[in-house]
């Protein structure tokens, strides 16, 4: 705990009457939301869907695991490396696997990783303790008077992959049964095959349309108008990403955090919102979710049959095409195409930062050039962004003072002032840094990966210059000098001893936040016990 203000200023804020009356500290100068709310938005690519899945009850998860595509996607996307090893090792075992054996398999210095992995597997109901645990007969030396050995059955805890998950994952790996879990290709020859470039273009247009709608098209100027359905707008509103005031769209602080994330995280964010709202309009959220995982396992550039889909899936499909996640010629077309936004849903962020989805985030002109990032930032805080996309430029200008604009390049400088401005809007330093990181120019990645470690061994290479990232964080911390604690002030004690005893008591029970002997006042987070103490002291007299 640290106080940035002087004690006098701190205390001066409280108006207070008698000894055990109590003020909830409320500092008008302190903006709560700016430091608390964006933290929740700052979810990394993995954690957003992961958090959602984790919140589902085990029964729902098991129901979800019945689709091989879902099991595969969750296995691939949500689990850490070690957890994957565990699942694969146990997948084809006949019986459960003793816990001890699993523990000896992992090096002792990696205990933390092991526990993390097992914890995640348990939370996702992938690994369970089977009911009949392994019975193992152990010969154990008993007490001396018996003098002999006694056979004893010990119930060893063991692990097993959940039945549903194991079966689905096995099916995914080996391919069996008639499940249509990975989509059905269109049979007939396509009259108007849609090329991958067209799909990319469609997806980018739709998605930039959504982002443009959020940021406000006026600010962007030349952005092409994309028609957004009401469903999309309502969803953005329901997710508190935008607010509608006087029929004007205003982006919220969550929204600012949202637009700075990479596309994959954004898509997941929207999809989770969609799944959450699915229940409200009478769709089974499990079914919607497993359809999303199915979409993620489809292949780009292929058209898929719609006739194998059920009612809910068709409805979802129609909604998703508004976002550019799938493409269909018209709502009644017999087939649909997945776009990159959906096929990369369960891929890695690595795969995403390569040409795959880079073309969507990146500058418009270079979609096939294979260049992923477009931002170069130097140690002198100068920023060069090779882009002509109005959306990207307006995003960069959120935290940069832009100076020059050329046909394919904008330059600017990150300053204390510009970062403060961004932070005041509710953007966090972490979001700025992660935005810069996801869009870093390949040249920067290459350069820093090869050279930055040579002098500083032991520190992993960072793509962005450490001095810039540190400084951005420090600029944010400048605003965090004040921390608010709600609690209760005790004051106006008549004698010093009268003050001292409850103050010490408060310190002992750990609720004391601040005290001033000279002015005989102290501040606590909990008042009940202190008041009790005061009463018990007063009573005998």
């Amino acid at each position, binding site marked *: 705990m640290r106080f940035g203000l002087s004690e006098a200023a701190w205390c001066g804020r409280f108006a207070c009457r008698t000894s055990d009356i109590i003020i909830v500290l409320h500092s008008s100068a302190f903006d709560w939301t700016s430091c608390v709310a964006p933290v929740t938005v700052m979810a990394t690519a993995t954690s957003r869907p992961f958090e959602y899945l984790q919140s589902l009850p085990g029964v729902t998860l098991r129901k979800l695991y019945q689709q091989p595509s879902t099991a595969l996607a969750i296995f691939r996307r949500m689990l850490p*490396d070690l957890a994957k090893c565990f699942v694969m090792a146990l997948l084809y075992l006949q019986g459960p696997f003793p816990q001890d054996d699993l523990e000896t398999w992992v090096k002792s210095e990696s205990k933390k990783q092991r526990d993390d992995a097992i914890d995640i597997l348990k939370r996702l109901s992938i690994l369970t303790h089977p009911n009949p645990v392994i019975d193992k007969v152990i010969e154990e030396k008993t007490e001396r008077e018996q003098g002999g050995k006694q056979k004893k059955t010990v119930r060893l805890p063991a692990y097993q992959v959940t039945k549903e998950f194991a079966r689905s994952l096995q099916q995914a790996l080996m391919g069996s049964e008639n499940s249509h879990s990975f989509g059905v290709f269109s049979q007939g020859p396509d009259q108007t095959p849609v090329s991958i470039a067209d799909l990319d273009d469609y997806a980018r247009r739709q998605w930039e349309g959504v982002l443009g709608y959020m940021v406000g098209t006026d600010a962007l100027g030349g952005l092409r108008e994309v028609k957004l359905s009401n469903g999309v707008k309502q969803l953005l509103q329901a997710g508190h990403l935008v607010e509608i005031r006087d029929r004007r769209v205003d982006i919220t602080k969550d929204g600012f955090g949202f637009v700075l994330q990479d596309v994959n995280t954004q898509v997941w964010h929207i999809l989770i919102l969609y799944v959450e709202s699915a229940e409200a309009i009478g769709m089974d959220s499990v079914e919607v979710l497993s359809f999303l995982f199915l979409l993620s396992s489809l292949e780009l550039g292929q058209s898929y049959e719609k006739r194998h889909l059920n009612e809910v899936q068709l409805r979802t499909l129609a909604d998703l095409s508004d976002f550019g996640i799938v493409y269909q010629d018209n709502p009644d077309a017999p087939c649909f195409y997945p776009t990159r936004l959906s096929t990369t849903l369960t891929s890695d962020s690595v795969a995403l930062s390569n040409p795959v989805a880079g073309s969507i985030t990146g500058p418009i002109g270079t979609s096939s050039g294979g260049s992923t990032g477009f931002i170069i930032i130097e140690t002198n805080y100068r920023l060069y962004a090779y882009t002509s996309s109005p959306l990207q430029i307006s995003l960069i200008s959120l935290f940069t003072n832009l100076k020059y604009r050329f046909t394919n390049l904008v330059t600017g400088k990150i300053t204390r002032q510009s970062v403060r401005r961004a932070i005041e809007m509710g953007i966090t330093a972490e979001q700025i840094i992660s935005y810069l990181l996801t869009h870093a120019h*390949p040249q920067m990645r290459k350069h820093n990966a090869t050279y930055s470690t040579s002098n500083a061994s032991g520190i992993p290479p960072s793509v962005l210059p450490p001095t810039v990232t540190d400084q951005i964080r420090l600029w944010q911390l400048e605003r965090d000098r004040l921390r608010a604690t709600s609690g209760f002030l005790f004051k106006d004690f008549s004698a010093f001893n009268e003050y001292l005893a409850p103050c010490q008591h408060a310190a002992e029970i750990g609720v004391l936040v601040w005290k001033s002997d000279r002015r005989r006042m102290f501040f606590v987070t909990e008042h009940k016990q202190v008041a009790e103490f005061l009463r018990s002291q007063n009573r005998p007299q």
Partner: protein
Amino acid sequence: MNSVDASEHYEQAATDLAPALLTVIIDTNPHAWAQLEDSLSLSKAIANILVFINAHLACNYANEVAVVASHSQKATWLYPVHQDKDTTTSSDQDGDISMNGASAAAAAAAAQQTNKYRPFRMVEEQVNRNLRELMNSTTDNDLRLTTSTMLAGALTLALSHINRRTIAWAEAHGGADLEDTAANGAGGGSGGPGTARYSAEDDERLQSRILVVSVSGSSDSAHQYIPMMNSIFACQRLHIPIDVCKLSGDAVFLQQACDATKGIYMCLDNPGGLLQYLMMAFLPDQRSRRHLVLPTNVNVDFRAACFCHRRVVRTGYVCSICLSIFCEPPPGTVCLTCGTQLELGDYGAKPALLPRKKKKKKRVNGSAAGTPMSTPTPGP
């Protein structure tokens, strides 16, 4: 307030993990598989390996795989097959092409394919088709001529593929490529065991490893000693572990390969359980292996093959100039590799300080504490 701490903010750079490239070398030597027929047939083994490959692909979206067959008379690619060859070989067996001619067979194939994740299916189809072609092209005459397998060729193919993929990946993602790593590794000799092996740069580049599913015995492959050792040392230099899953027989050089490259060597007692062995021991990639206790082989056979007759020798003669190994003094005491005129003193005497004659014992089991791998320059 902890966020200003110097340590914390470097962690996030490591979240983007490089994918892994697994190259599987399948020993398809018909002689050896014929002997193994009772416990594990080739087709069953291939099925198991394919599930294993799928599991590898399932671990990460960007994971890659390559399959090489080390056959009796040649080493050849099973997957990926280069495009020009692909179009010329077959058009009817390829599901993708026949799909357009909506015949009944194509419809059945299409229905069948939907139950499998497409990348998995493509690997499986190609491997099966190419393996069938390979087997069909093997004539009786080929079989009569040789009983060994072309492991050295397969290793070389695998290495060149890994090199190509690593460079391509580094170009696309801006990571360090093999050359950088090799340069770093060369600075510290052959890389001290354990300590500095896992530098940060290892995480940045494509994680490559080689798995050899071996069935042939060692004595057959002694004539490939030199090319094989060269590939092994290349792997060692580039930090590519060679894992060996030995189904039958015992191969001297493969043990050395695992030992030198810090790979896993496993000799299966029960080849029927191949899949479980593969899933448990060979699936974890380099990153996960750091956390796992790996099955290690303590008794490594460090015997070498002589350069003159390709015999596996326990004690031999070594040229003092180029370190070539001979099972007996070369004719005219002229080194067959470098042409140096050597002198051979009385064998068995106490070695003198003068470099008059060289006699070096190739040590066997247990003496791994010495530096048996410190001679990485065997001949041409």
